[in-house]
């Protein structure tokens, strides 16, 4: 945990609201981006981040300041995202991973779409599990071990999901599996 996070959390534990606002200023941008990457819906992402910060404030007493804040924070955010997606019945809308691969092969051979549009399409169409690990790894910079702890699955599973997620994106861009 950064020393700034630690100082702010100590103050929040003592009831300092301004410190909580500062913590929001530091972490809200990436929290919003992450929730948006997971849900692909701005309104849902805002609601998720709102609920996440409210839970953080209400449960800050249970947070151990000797441990890093970010994994704890993102675990709450991920749980909120899952809860939200379930509530909104969006889980059913996710496309099966294997199904996505078929589309990826198709588009990688079309060549008439811009590279960026291809990636957009790919990430958006990834199922929740793969989209989530790709986002946590590349947007938030978490290590494989940290993601595994947050999602409560083993490291090899995360490695496998990252590998598959990366592979899809490479295929979209016309790369090869060996790259």
């Amino acid at each position: 945990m950064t020393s700034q996070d630690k100082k702010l959390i100590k103050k929040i534990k003592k009831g300092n609201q301004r410190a909580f606002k500062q913590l929001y200023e530091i972490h809200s941008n990436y929290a919003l981006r992450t929730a948006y990457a997971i849900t692909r819906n701005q309104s849902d992402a805002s609601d998720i981040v709102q609920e996440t910060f409210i839970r953080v404030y209400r449960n800050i007493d249970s947070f151990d300041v000797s441990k890093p804040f970010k994994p704890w924070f993102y675990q709450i955010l991920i749980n909120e995202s899952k809860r939200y997606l379930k509530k909104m019945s969006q889980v059913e809308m996710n496309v099966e991973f294997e199904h996505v691969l078929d589309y990826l092969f198709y588009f990688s051979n079309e060549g008439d779409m811009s590279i960026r549009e291809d990636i957009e399409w790919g990430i958006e169409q990834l199922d929740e599990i793969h989209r989530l690990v790709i986002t946590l790894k590349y947007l938030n910079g978490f290590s494989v071990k940290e993601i595994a702890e947050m999602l409560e699955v083993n490291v090899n599973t995360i490695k496998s999901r990252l590998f598959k997620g990366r592979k899809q994106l490479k295929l979209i861009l016309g790369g090869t599996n060996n790259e």
Partner: protein
Amino acid sequence: MSKPEWNKKIKNHLIDQTESITELKESTWQNIDKELFPTVKKKKRRRRTKQVIVSIAGAAMIMLFIMFSSNEQGLAMMQSIREIFVEEKKQIVELEGNKEVRDVHLNKNYQLEYVLYVDESYYKVIEQENSDLILPKMEFEDIDVPEISMEIMQHTDISKDELIDEVITEITDSGLTINQEEEVMYPLESLVIKGVGNTEEYANPGDTPIHRYYIKDTGSGQLFLIKQVYFLTAAEGHGVRLNSMLETFEVISNN
């Protein structure tokens, strides 16, 4: 393309594609702020009115206790009066200009003859042999945090002047300097004596201790001594919260 280049490309893409959501940062905060720290539009003047009403109600209850507690009918009446104090209520706490609405819970101590509403999300009450000790609920195992506490004691065998002398001796023996000694109306009608440590003696000046004592004379040979311990940095946090709880202090009588 090399692996680092791919990784960078994916990251840039994610940042680029999620840029628009950052526009919702302020409105998201507004919703959080509204939920956690609802603004209560009440004029400050009303606090005084409320205090007067509470004082009148408190005095009336004491009278009723005295009048009715000597017989069976009186005991039943006393029981019903005890029920006047609801178990839970909401209290407004103003911290650094922001108002919070807190859920507070009734703490009754018939032995010490008082009631007080406690913010149990922050504090716990430890019943001791001759006093109640209120401590932060959160335990700081790995961090060295200066003491925060509020102790409520009752004295019936000592005069007010003697108690004042004892408090002054206790403050000076602790190495603190008295910087306040006066009659106050808030958080309760009482005499306050406050001692503050020397900031230069502490590696972190914010850790300088503050000991604040309130002496409440009920006028019937019964004195309450409330001792608050906190530190400079916590003055605007715990210092305010302890006083907010103390504002709800009411004497009850078992005689």
